[in-house]
């Protein structure tokens, strides 16, 4: 046995004393089983109560989701969205009639496998099957879509064979066939999948790819919701994820869109509002909840899986925040609260100018000084030769600062699919 030596070493190590052994639950005084933040220890029941209460009070206080509303739950297979599903399911089953969570949920899974390097059809198929198993266990209606669907024409999607609905009543046999059809479908409908692939391959930086993925994903979610008559989309972004997003948005020059990107409700798409009910939980709490409730989640490779730390701004920021979090446990909550203090001013003076791509309020007009300096600094006045980074001159006024940087990395804006501006 090759690791026998290591086992010997671990035997000699001093036994770690579990802090929970001595601690009492701060709520009920029973023996505690876990520590959420630095000092507060909870027993199993109190933790579940605390967690559920936080989730429900977040939904209640914001009053964004109305009783009886049709809500699309975005399920990625990851721990956070799995916990979201579980919370919704429990909320609809438990408690008295009055306290019950009264929404009409549906599930959506976006298969992003086509843009992940080295993720072949067989693996994709397997992944989709695992996810569909988890999704169907909930008994909610499930919608499977693929990321490339976003590049199909919006008007034709009503009859699009790619978007399949598997009702909870359907047998699992049917669903498997659906999945197979989907995963095979790239060979049937090459155009959109290939176009998507090319779009990502042409992107000069991983940062731009990340931005693109984020944008396409939320566009697709909104589209699916619209098509099936949902008015809200719930996504599983945790507080940890959102504080990384806050920092990354700042670094990418998207400070103006930050309140929309990380707030509780994102209403930039008009009729469909994206809601982030998991934002009050840090990743640690969620994984504790999943352990206690035995919530299953799957790991699917993403765009930034197995890349170097400094490969993209988003990836670097994640490493930065989680690195700080180790030594300064309040980092995530502090960053998150800073972001929560920002809002979008709804009293826009001149019309409703929004970025053509990300639909956030345009930020270029607000600070004329900055943008002018930024542009002239590329080359001295009167000389535009060579070193001018494309700022989407023709699209110029309708792109926000962050999106113009992304477009610059994506190549010529005119070759980009129209759906990006939809």
């Amino acid at each position, binding site marked *: 046995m090759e690791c026998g030596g290591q086992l010997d070493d671990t035997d000699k190590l001093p036994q770690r004393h579990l802090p929970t052994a001595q601690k009492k639950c701060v709520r009920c005084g029973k023996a505690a089983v876990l520590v959420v933040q630095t000092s507060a220890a909870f027993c199993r029941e109190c933790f579940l109560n605390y967690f559920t209460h936080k989730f429900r009070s977040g939904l209640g206080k914001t009053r964004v989701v109305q009783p009886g509303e049709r809500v699309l739950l975005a399920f990625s297979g990851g721990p956070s969205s799995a916990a979201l599903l579980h919370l919704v399911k429990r909320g609809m089953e438990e408690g008295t009639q009055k306290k019950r969570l009264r929404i009409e949920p549906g599930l959506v899974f976006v298969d992003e496998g086509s843009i992940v390097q080295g993720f072949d059809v067989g693996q994709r198929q397997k992944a989709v099957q695992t996810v569909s198993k988890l999704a169907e266990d909930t008994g909610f209606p499930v919608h499977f879509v693929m990321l490339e669907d976003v590049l199909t024409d919006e008007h034709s999607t009503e009859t699009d064979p790619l978007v399949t609905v598997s009702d909870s009543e359907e047998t699992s046999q049917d669903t498997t066939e659906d999945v197979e059809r989907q995963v095979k479908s790239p060979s049937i409908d090459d155009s959109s999948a290939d176009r998507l692939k090319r779009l990502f391959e042409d992107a000069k*930086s991983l*940062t731009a790819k990340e931005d693109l993925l984020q944008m396409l994903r939320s566009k697709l979610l909104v589209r699916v919701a619209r098509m099936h008559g949902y008015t809200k989309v719930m996504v599983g972004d945790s507080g940890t994820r959102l504080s990384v997003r*806050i*920092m990354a*948005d*700042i*670094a*990418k*020059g*998207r*400070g*103006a869109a*930050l*309140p929309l990107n990380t707030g509780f409700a994102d209403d930039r798409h008009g009729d469909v509002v994206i809601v982030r009910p998991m934002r009050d939980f840090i990743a640690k709490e969620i994984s504790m909840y999943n352990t206690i409730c035995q919530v299953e989640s799957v790991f699917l490779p993403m765009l930034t899986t197995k890349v170097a730390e*400094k*490969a*993209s*701004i988003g990836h*670097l*920021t994640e490493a*930065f925040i989680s*690195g*700080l979090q180790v030594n*300064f446990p309040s*980092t995530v909550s*502090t*960053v998150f*609260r*800073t*972001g929560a*203090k*920002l*809002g*979008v*001013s709804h009293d826009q003076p001149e019309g409703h100018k929004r970025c053509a791509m990300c639909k956030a309020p345009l*930020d270029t007009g*607000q*600070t004329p*000084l*900055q*943008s*002018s*300096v*930024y542009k*002239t*600094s*590329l*080359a*001295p*006045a009167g*000389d535009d*030769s*060579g*070193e001018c*980074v494309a700022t989407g001159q023709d699209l110029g006024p309708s792109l926000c*600062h*962050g999106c113009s*940087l992304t477009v610059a990395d994506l190549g010529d804006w005119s070759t980009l699919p129209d759906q990006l501006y939809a």
Partner: protein
Amino acid sequence: MPISCGLCEKRAMLKRPKTGGALCKECFFTVFEAEVHQTITSASLFKRGETVAIAASGGKDSTVLAHLMKLLNHRHDYGLNLILLSVDEGITGYRDDSLETVKRNQQQYELPLKVVSYKELYGWTMDEIVRQIGLKNNCTFCGVFRRQALDRGAMMLGVNKIVTGHNADDVAETVIMNVLRGDIARLQRCTAIVTGTEGAIPRCKPFKYTYEKEIVMYAYFKKLDYFSTECIYSPNAYRGHARTYLKDLESIRSTSIIDIIHSGECMSVSVKKDVKMPTQGTCARCGYISSNELCKACVLLEGLNKGLPKLGIGKPHKARLALGLTNTPDTTTAPGSQRKEGCQSCSCRSRPYAAVSDTPGCNKDNRLSSQSKEDNRLTDSIAKQEELGASYTVGAGGDSCSCNSDVQRETSASTIGVKSVLCGQDKNTPCACRKGKGQVGTRVTGDSPAVPDLDF
């Protein structure tokens, strides 16, 4: 094959960090100067006939700033009256050397120079303060005092504006720091190109959009005479994280620094209306702008003079408690609250009305508490100081428990013994008497890359 300049046909000498474009030396100067000029004119920083103080430390930013202000004032006829203003913090081995550089700059640029020192304004030099507070939190004192010292110096000179050498990297780093600290009020202020327009003398940052690397390159190619050493008392670990992050971002996308400033500008206008902001008033004691009854400088100074150097460091309400919550400076008759702040374990605790904890034993106590929070690289030196403090207690810790600041000075003078031992034992510890250890002149530290960014 040599790469030619993007603007003329000459051979390129450098790759611009901001844009990645290749430029020759002359074109780089032109572009650099034009950009700063544009920043100044488009923000209308100055009016004709104004007197402007250039905050000069002798470092790269302020040296380039002094050079450019002089140059642009002449070239574009701003009609400004320029004065160099320096603050002498009293850091032996650092500021005395950099002030020499400022004095040389004064002659080179033929500008009048005014130096204000912490000693004359507050009665304390940084060396003395560090002996009280140790190496942790000393930057709080220095920063707060410097801010006020600059204003006081400017007031003495009767200037209309102060220009500082804060560059784009500094501003971006401050944005990140304020997000990490959750300081929404500072986040809102930090990206403004002119700050302190109400009441105080306005401060401008003409280098707000200028990359640090380009400033270094400019100074290098112009062969400007500047001083390049990090402060011997600044092992600010947390800011270091933000700095590293910023440098990594810049390596991924060179526009990141400007992008962060842009984000900061956008965020400063999108703060929710219901967020509680500190109200700005004036200090009851010195009249300087402050969001509390007493300004931070007065609280810190009070702490120093009473031998409670930690007074202004922790939670603000504790400091207010210790100061008796009133505007009256004489609060020595509030023993209960003061004891809370000071000693926990030393002999003065047993005295019911010991107001102030300035025995060496109390210093020990303070050090112990700071040690527990200290990051690893400092722990060694603190431990050594602590040992010394302890042995000192045996000798003199008898009856010096009074709030007389003179006694306090004596105590601090006695602790000079610490530094010689430190120098002997631990070379890594920044120490007051490291003067002359290869820190003179324009030694370039790892933090300010003078040449390494030249890609040719």
